[in-house]
């Protein structure tokens, strides 16, 4: 996959193999560097940055700066010249339809529609209510009539049979039904229901069986008693809870009053305190959230830049756990084991256990409610307050809400245009510890046999560059300048570019293969298999033109 640059020396048409020099940096690295840089700069458009596309960008826009430092300063200052040198790639983008503010009549129409709907709903509710009241009144009348009738009948047996015929078991039942209906009628009519009173009144008769000892009751009554006991206890519990809630509310009210008082005393100080508290809490929550979600941001793009370890996939909390486990595994038996001497040591196991981050789930909840409370309070009293204005997360979320513009779909090539090809001259940009092209020429010259006088000058006056990477504008000038720096003053230097750098090597081989002497000058695969590579190497290839 790698492509290489070679420096080869020819003396009198003979290659000097000893003076060869090779670097591991080539066009692949330039493209890869550009691709990585752009995808880090524009993570949203990573799908558009395919290898082919970046290769095209490289061939079209990249150039080699005459002097990297001064060129980059041009961009740092933001000169006019730098602006001219900046290229912009506009990605396909369609403006989202601009929403026009609704006209006056539109608003009026909508309001009317809404009003109509609510009117209808109101009417429906009214009709329902009146029908319910009617129903209840009818029932009440029936019950009243029943009670009247009951008054007329004196004997007990007759009462029972009469009630059974009407669907009731006892007189008490009729009375309770009567009470219920009256109550719901009142409710329906919108009157205040004296519920407390009702409970007090009915408590004695509702639970009429509770105070009677068990052995005086029949089986049926026992069952009824148990039910009543249960009912009573639940009602009481409910009442107690209500009481508690009331007390809590009172407490809160008191706290609020206290705060209000504080505020009255010193409004600025109070506001300051509140703000500080808000900031602290929001930061705390933010950090926790980040810890939980960290590492899952760009999983898909991670593997572009090389191997993805197991650790990279986990989030920070998990990674911390992993670290603890590994240190624990390798720590044993090394030196004196003091584990457990202090009580804190045992906390380690709690951290190590898998579900340790689920443990403190109720705590963030508490923090969150507190945060919500403070922010609402701040909003009440502080007109300049904007929730979440200080936290970093919402700052990064802001662009999501504003409509995307043309600029969001642009890929700007500025410094990248010459930063990427610069790796040919400074491979340490991409972490390869080798000398660049210009220095390599010096290395090669030093490797030349030293017995010929003036050989080095002869060499530098005819340098041929070939291969795709020499197509960058400015390549020849830069190479010349670089060589001039390492050679003595007045050295003749001439850099010639091949006429067709990409295809020349192939063309040469093609011409050679088509020539008549090709079969005599080459070895076949069978030769290699029969005689071995050592025999081949003895030939010490001669090169004649």
């Amino acid at each position, binding site marked *: 996959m790698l492509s290489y640059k070679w420096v080869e020396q020819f003396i009198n048409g003979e290659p000097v193999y000893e003076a060869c020099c090779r670097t591991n940096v080539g066009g692949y690295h330039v493209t890869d560097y550009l691709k990585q840089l752009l995808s880090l700069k524009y993570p949203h458009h990573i799908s558009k940055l395919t290898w082919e596309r970046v290769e095209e960008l490289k061939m079209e826009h990249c150039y080699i700066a005459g002097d990297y430092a001064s060129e980059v300063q041009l961009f*740092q200052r933001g000169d006019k010249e730098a602006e001219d040198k900046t290229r912009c790639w506009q990605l396909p983008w369609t403006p989202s339809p601009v929403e026009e503010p609704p006209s006056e009549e539109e608003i009026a129409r909508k309001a009317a529609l809404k009003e109509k709907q609510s009117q209808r709903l109101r009417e429906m509710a009214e009709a329902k209510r009146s029908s319910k009241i009617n129903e209840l009144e009818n029932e009440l009348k029936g019950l009243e009539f029943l009670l009247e009738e009951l008054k007329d009948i004196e004997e007990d047996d007759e009462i029972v049979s009469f009630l059974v015929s009407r669907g009731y078991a006892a007189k008490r039942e009729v009375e309770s039904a009567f009470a219920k209906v009256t109550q719901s009628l009142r409710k329906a009519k919108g009157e205040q229901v004296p519920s407390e009173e009702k409970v007090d009144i009915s408590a004695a008769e509702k639970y009429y069986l509770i105070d009677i000892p068990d052995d005086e009751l029949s089986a049926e009554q026992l069952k009824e008693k148990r039910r009543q006991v249960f009912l009573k206890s639940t009602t009481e519990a409910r009442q107690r809870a209500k009481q508690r809630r009331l007390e809590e509310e009172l407490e809160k009210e008191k706290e609020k009053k206290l705060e209000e008082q504080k505020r009255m005393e010193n409004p600025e100080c109070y506001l300051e305190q509140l703000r500080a508290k808000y900031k602290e809490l929001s930061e705390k929550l933010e950090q926790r959230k980040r810890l939980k979600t960290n590492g899952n941001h*760009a999983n898909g793009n991670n593997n572009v830049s090389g191997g993805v*370890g197991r650790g990279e996939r986990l989030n920070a909390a998990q990674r911390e756990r992993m670290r603890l486990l590994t240190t624990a595994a390798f720590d044993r038996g090394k030196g004196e084991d003091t584990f457990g001497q202090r009580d804190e040591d045992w906390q380690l196991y709690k951290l190590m256990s898998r579900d340790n981050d689920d443990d403190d789930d109720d705590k963030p909840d508490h923090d969150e409610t507190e945060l919500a409370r403070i922010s609402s309070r701040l909003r009440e009293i502080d007109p300049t307050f904007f929730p979440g204005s200080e936290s970093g997360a919402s700052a990064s979320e802001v662009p999501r809400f504003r409509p995307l513009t043309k600029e969001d779909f642009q890929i700007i090539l500025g410094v990248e245009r010459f930063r990427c090809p610069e790796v040919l001259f400074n491979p*340490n940009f*991409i972490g*390869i510890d080798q*000398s*660049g092209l210009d220095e*390599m020429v010096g290395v090669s010259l030093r490797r030349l046999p030293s017995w010929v006088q003036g050989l080095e000058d002869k060499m530098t006056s005819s340098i041929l560059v070939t291969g795709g990477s020499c197509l960058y504008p400015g390549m020849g000038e830069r190479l010349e300048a670089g060589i001039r720096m390492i050679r003595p003053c007045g050295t003749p230097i001439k850099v010639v570019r091949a006429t067709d750098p990409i295809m020349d090597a192939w063309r040469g081989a093609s011409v050679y293969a088509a020539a008549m002497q090709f079969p005599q000058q080459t070895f076949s695969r069978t030769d290699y298999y029969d005689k071995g590579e050592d025999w081949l190497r003895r030939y010490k290839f001669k090169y004649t033109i």
Partner: protein
Amino acid sequence: MEREVLEAELVLPTHMKFKKIQMYDKYPKGQARGRHWKHLKQIIQAENYENYPPQLPTYVNIETPPSMHPGKKICDITGFEAPYFDPRTKLRYANTEVFKAIRSLPNDYVQRYLALRNAAVVLR
């Protein structure tokens, strides 16, 4: 003709006159490629370069030596000259704006920037 062929900018002829063995003979369609490509490292190892006399130029020993000049330090984000270094993220930066940016970068982006110059810490 198929649609993809018509749309393609460049179509290689299936039959090449100068080839003794055509591609379609060598790799019949539907069959997995029989050829196993060796990696560069494997080839170098198979060549047994260490057995040759050291002065003989081989693929490995013609490689250019490390640079004699101190490496240029450039800002990892912008490419400007970087006089500063952030000890927390280990990134180099050019000015305060870039510093603000790198402090707010998520950790995996920092690692990817570092990986660009082979300085990333790979946790395994």
